[in-house]
């Protein structure tokens, strides 16, 4: 099938399915067809093609896309001048001959776990349109889960790839902090922001990840490490890897469907051991405080001048964040170094740790509270209780979906820094047992 035919089919499918899901905020028909035609021409001439030749993908709308204002899910950013250049991650996927088809919906300024957006409309879960997609990479997850595109780009600060991957039942990769370039993305929390791919299988995650690797002088945080290709070792399997379940904080409050998912993964991998990440609860709290403070600092001028143009749910959290005493933020960063050292000691004895990605499957759109560990609490800020202690110290994580009732949920496969290969190998091995898979929504 030609790249042009694939792009055309993709655009037709998006036109048919997107109105119900609301995953896209911009569709780039001319650009997609032009790229696809160029690929077909190169193929006809016998020229070299990249490893993602013809693969349609879309990017969360905090990635710069040339010619579009970078919305970052906001009303205010609609007034920005169009980006003059694509984000690094977009350019690298295009260099691998993937075909960009559009920009995707997000929770405003990425300060969101639900996928709700008062400006662009809520993104909906393709498995049940009355439920949340999760966020903030809401469109990125929903577009893949709904079969609109096979690959998307998201970002993850405290869980924004892993949470929507869980709710939408797809695979997501939050790589090691600094592994993939953030250049050309609208920021949220410089201390914690990561970018990464979402896809329907571990192989596609690996292919996208490999295409995006490499240092980038446009991103001071991007590590200048040699490219360490994962795709060639993906089918090595999980045998011989030392894998444990995360206990303690990561067991407290899980809903029955998540308990089922964890049990199935543990059985498939033969996991016998459970370990505790020391002070994970405090780690989550410190991540929360750093996020609130840095996020507020970024948006301070907007809070002063344009507060009424912000989503109230985001605005009020940002205002509160601006008031956090600096001594507490400084302490959070010191605690972060302490916690990182303790967790890396654990990785001297274990290759991977498995934990839930979310406490529950996707809640109903508009739901404001839920009961976690017998305590009723606000939903929005607390969905990330299991993801935050991990991204806090930049560990690589694959979110791998387990088809359970009522809706899929994902597990986090967590590895040591720079060992994305291990997390992806385990995800692939689980796929081969059938325990993890991205289910197709019933109505598509």
């Amino acid at each position, binding site marked *: 099938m030609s790249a042009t035919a694939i792009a055309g089919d993709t655009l037709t499918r998006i036109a048919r399915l997107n109105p119900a899901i609301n995953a896209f905020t911009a569709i780039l028909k001319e650009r997609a067809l032009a790229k696809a035609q160029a690929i077909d021409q190169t193929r006809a001439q016998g020229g070299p093609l990249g490893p993602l030749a013809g693969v349609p993908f879309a990017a969360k709308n905090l990635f710069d896309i040339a010619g579009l204002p970078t919305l970052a899910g906001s009303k205010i950013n609609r007034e920005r001048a169009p980006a003059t250049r694509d984000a690094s991650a977009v350019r690298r996927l295009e260099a691998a001959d993937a075909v960009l088809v559009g920009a995707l919906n997000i929770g405003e300024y990425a300060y969101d776990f639900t996928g709700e957006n008062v400006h662009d409309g809520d993104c909906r879960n393709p498995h049940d349109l009355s439920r949340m997609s999760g966020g903030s990479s809401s469109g990125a997850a929903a577009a893949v889960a709904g079969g609109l595109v096979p690959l998307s780009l998201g970002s993850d600060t405290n869980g924004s790839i892993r949470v929507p991957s869980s709710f939408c039942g797809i695979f997501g990769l939050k790589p090691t902090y600094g592994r993939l370039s953030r250049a050309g993305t609208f920021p949220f929390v410089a*201390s914690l922001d990561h970018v990464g791919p979402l896809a329907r299988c571990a192989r596609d995650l690996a292919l996208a990840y490999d295409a995006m690797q490499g240092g980038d002088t446009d991103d001071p945080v991007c590590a200048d490490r040699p490219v360490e290709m994962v795709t060639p070792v993906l089918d090595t399997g999980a045998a011989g890897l030392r894998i444990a379940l995360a206990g303690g904080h990561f067991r407290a409050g899980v809903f029955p469907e998540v308990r089922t998912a964890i049990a199935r993964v543990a059985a498939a991998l033969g996991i016998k051991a459970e370990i505790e990440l020391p002070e994970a609860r405090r780690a989550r709290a*410190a991540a929360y405080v750093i996020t609130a403070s840095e996020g507020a600092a970024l948006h301070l001028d907007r809070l002063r001048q344009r507060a009424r143009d912000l989503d109230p749910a985001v*605005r009020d959290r940002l205002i509160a964040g*601006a*008031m956090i005493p600096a001594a507490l933020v400084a302490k959070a960063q*010191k*605690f972060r170094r*302490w916690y990182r050292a303790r967790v890396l000691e654990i990785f001297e004895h274990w290759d991977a740790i498995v934990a839930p990605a979310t406490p529950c499957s996707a809640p109903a759109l508009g739901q404001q509270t839920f009961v976690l560990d017998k305590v009723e609490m606000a939903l929005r800020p607390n969905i990330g209780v299991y993801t935050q202690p991990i991204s806090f110290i930049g560990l690589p994580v694959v979110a791998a979906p387990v088809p359970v009732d009522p809706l899929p949920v994902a597990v986090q496969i967590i590895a040591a820094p720079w060992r994305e290969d291990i997390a992806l190998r385990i995800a692939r091995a689980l796929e081969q047992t059938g325990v993890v898979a991205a289910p197709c929504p019933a109505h598509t």
Partner: protein
Amino acid sequence: MKNPDSDQLDQFIDATAGLLDLPIELAWKKAVKGHLEVTLRLAASFAEFPLPDEAEPAPVFVA
């Protein structure tokens, strides 16, 4: 770290908003206060975690 009482928090929010030149409409105050309460409660969980003076922060600046 002491839990601030409700009046203290109101005064703190008003004073800080003034210093930062942050407009807070009356209708927003309850939510802002609620978020700040949660944040301070979370901060209390690590604020008194014992770390030596020599403990370095996680981010490292290179000249």
